[in-house]
């Protein structure tokens, strides 16, 4: 390492950042009773991110991983201009962020706001610094050292066959649940909303137009076609307002069940069409929207300076009896926040395209760690948006429909039962101001986030009349992401299924064989479609039932990734640094195993799936109907659903344990072997790319994402 000279200016800047961060945390933690501004959450986040990126990420890179700029990266060695090519670190940072960011960090924090703003803020910030960003960065590094191998391949080669197969099955199963829950969020946001359905439906012709433009008119001119698509998108949102007041409104008012059928058909058709028709143009649009909305929201918070309306810690956090999702603070707040703090899915991206494009090993902290800090910043923004709206409205929107009843009056009474207050008139006014018929029981997080964004942006731009536009702008932005993810995820699931079935029926290995594509795509679509249907029809509320399963499975995947990283650190003779991934692994295991245990074995029917099953089965045997079920059919649905979800919880946890134990076995073997075992790493080749002038070996002043 280079010897750094003492620089008083730099020292003063970092001291100021540290003081700002510490002061913001104190304000958040010590506030009692008085209203505090949301800006403190943002300041605490940015201050902590800067310190973490500058010190912890660099410590991991140089002490633990021992990045070496004299070693050629796969991008340099295999440079083919296609898969592998050395990429500017700022560009690759953007690429990687666009690939990991999605709807998860937007939805989870909104639901977790039920427990108050403090648990969410702490876990999003501390979790990303010590767990989420560490996982992303370490996986990226190990994959880069193995020429960009996937997590599954690394597991098979370094841990063994059993661990590899368990990891593969887990990834597939978890992806199905992920797609179902994301689709459920969209269904809940679009149901009975002609404005929303019309503007989202219009994205299909817009994408087709963009696809044809890029294919036939001006190939490769992505920037101009993105601007064109964006303009059309805004026109579609504005047009939605007109449609919702016209005679066409009925045609675009769809029930949740109809939407499920539409989504399943869309998912199938979109994923068997060539990529250029729908997926590629939608990808350009959603990346454009993603970065635009994050910047817009950050500016909105700065200009509007909204006050937090939520308590730091609510009674639901202490008692675990919240209506949005059941269960106590530990472990369920950590599960619910999902992708903004620690996301197992990122390990699949970090071991995908990105490691093949890294120019220098010292870029790993900015790309792996920094992108995840940015993702966490998105989650902080979502939390802020959920914590500045009226709590009465929050519960009226997020409690299950069965609890809130059919009228505004019953919803208002139910909210009073939770200890909050909102009048039926206010509920009606709010719905009207965002251009919807009703906001009651719009669960899933997306509508709540959209209301929060609308409140912040109309405040920031002093434009009350724009509320309904901003609301639908936010809904469009989330739905666009999710539909792109549904299309892309179905394709990846199909690919995995083709490979697996191909081991038995070789014909399926042929990725161009149309019947093979259709059969496997249909299988994947029906699998997530089943859970989507379950989520929409469950009398207990789909989000309430399925979201914990999604959050748990995502973090179980993180456990697998962290376990593989820890085993690799030990195998390479770095036992003394194994805590860097070992500590977050222990925490994530404690969270997910407690959650899985409670979901399977808890005697409380609100939390445990099998206790729930027993309660409803018993009543069903006696022929009685328990609220919120309305008929014996509803009762039977609950019994089936809780059996399926309970079994899945158990299977996910067992698969994870198989992988973790396989990793532990390898680690023990390495220690017995005198501290290390041979690795399956690519050989050392001297790099010929000179270090860039501004990129000193220590990564210079890599401004982290949080500052934007």
């Amino acid at each position, binding site marked *: 390492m280079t010897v750094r000279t003492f620089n008083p200016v730099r020292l003063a800047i970092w001291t100021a950042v540290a003081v700002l961060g510490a002061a913001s945390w104190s304000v958040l933690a010590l506030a009692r009773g008085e209203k505090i501004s949301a800006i403190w959450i943002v300041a605490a986040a940015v201050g902590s991110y800067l310190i973490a990126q500058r010190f912890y990420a660099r410590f991991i890179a140089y002490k633990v991983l021992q990045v070496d700029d004299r070693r050629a990266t796969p991008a340099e060695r295999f440079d083919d*201009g*296609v*898969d592998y*090519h050395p*990429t*500017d670190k*700022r*560009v690759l940072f*953007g*690429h990687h962020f*666009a*690939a*990991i*960011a*999605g*709807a*998860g960090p937007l939805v989870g924090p909104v639901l977790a706001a039920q427990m108050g703003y403090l648990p969410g803020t702490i876990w999003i910030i501390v979790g990303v610094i010590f767990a989420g960003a560490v996982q992303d960065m370490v996986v990226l590094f190990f994959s880069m050292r193995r020429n960009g191998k*996937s997590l599954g391949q690394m597991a098979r080669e370094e841990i063994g066959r059993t661990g590899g197969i368990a990891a593969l099955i887990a990834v597939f199963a978890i992806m199905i649940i*992920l797609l179902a829950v*994301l689709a459920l969020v969209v269904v809940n946001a679009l149901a009975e909303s002609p404005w929303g359905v019309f503007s989202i439906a219009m994205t299909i012709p817009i994408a087709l137009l963009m696809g044809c433009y*890029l*294919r036939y008119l001006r*190939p*490769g*001119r*992505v*920037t101009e076609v*993105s601007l064109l698509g964006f303009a059309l998108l805004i026109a579609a949102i504005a047009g939605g307002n007109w449609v919702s007041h016209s005679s066409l409104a009925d045609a675009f008012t769809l029930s949740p069940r109809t939407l499920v059928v539409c989504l399943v058909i869309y998912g199938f058709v979109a994923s068997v069409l*060539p*990529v*250029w028709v729908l*997926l*590629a143009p939608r*990808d*350009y649009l959603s*990346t454009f929207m993603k970065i635009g909305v994050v910047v817009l929201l950050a500016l909105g918070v700065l200009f509007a300076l909204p006050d937090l309306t939520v308590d730091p810690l609510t009674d639901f956090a202490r008692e675990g009896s919240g209506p949005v999702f059941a269960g106590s603070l530990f472990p369920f707040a950590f599960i619910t926040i*999902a*992708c903004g703090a620690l*996301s197992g*899915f*990122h390990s*699949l*991206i970090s071991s*995908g*395209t990105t490691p093949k494009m890294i120019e220098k090993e010292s870029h790993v902290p900015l790309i792996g760690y920094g992108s995840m800090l940015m993702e966490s910043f998105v989650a902080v923004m979502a939390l802020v948006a959920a914590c500045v709206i009226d709590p009465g409205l929050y519960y009226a929107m997020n409690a299950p429909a069965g609890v809130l009843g059919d009228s505004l009056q019953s919803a208002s009474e139910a909210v009073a039962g939770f200890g909050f207050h909102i009048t039926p008139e206010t509920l009606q006014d709010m719905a009207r101001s965002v251009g919807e018929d009703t906001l009651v029981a719009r669960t899933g997080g997306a509508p709540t986030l959209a209301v929060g964004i609308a409140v912040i942006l109309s405040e920031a731009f002093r434009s009350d009349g724009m509320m309904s536009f901003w609301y639908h702008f936010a809904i469009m932005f989330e739905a666009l992401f999710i539909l*792109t*993810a549904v299309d*892309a*995820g179905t*394709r*990846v699931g*199909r*690919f995995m299924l083709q490979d697996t079935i191909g081991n038995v029926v070789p014909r399926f290995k042929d*990725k*161009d064989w149309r019947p093979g594509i259709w059969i496997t795509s249909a299988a994947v679509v029906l699998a997530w479609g089943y859970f989507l249907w379950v989520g929409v029809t469950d009398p207990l509320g789909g989000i309430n039932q399925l979201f914990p399963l999604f959050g748990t499975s*995502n973090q179980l995947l993180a456990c697998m990734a962290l376990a593989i990283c820890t085993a690799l650190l030990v195998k390479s003779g770095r036992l003394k640094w194994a805590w860097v991934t070992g500590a977050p692994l222990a925490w994530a295991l404690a969270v997910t195993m407690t959650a899985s245990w409670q979901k399977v074995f808890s005697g409380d029917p609100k939390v445990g799936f099998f206790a729930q099953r027993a309660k409803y089965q018993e009543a069903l045997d006696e022929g009685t109907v328990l609220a919120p079920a309305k008929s014996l059919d509803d009762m039977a649905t609950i019994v089936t659903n809780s059996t399926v979800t309970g079994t899945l919880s158990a299977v996910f946890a067992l698969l994870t344990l198989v992988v973790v134990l396989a990793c532990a076995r390898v680690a023990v073997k390495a220690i017995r072997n005198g501290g290390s075992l041979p690795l399956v790493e690519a050989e050392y080749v001297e790099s010929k790319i000179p270090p860039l002038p501004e990129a000193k070996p220590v990564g210079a002043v890599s401004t982290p994402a949080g500052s934007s």
Partner: protein
Amino acid sequence: MRSPGAAPPATGRGGALARIRRCAAWIRWYVKELNGEHAYARYAERARAAGEPVLSRREFEHRRVDRRDGDPREGGRCC
């Protein structure tokens, strides 16, 4: 045309107008790097340097996007 891989300088001397222009040029460069618009220029430069026949832009872009049909894991998106 500049080499597609190299970023225009984001800072430098000159009047305010010149600085704004350089900043805009940098943003344009960054966006086009990010969305893959520079891929063809990069490819064409390589192919020419290697003395290979250069595909037309249309042909190149078709092949580039069609590759994702074969392996959808490329350019994958997350939650």
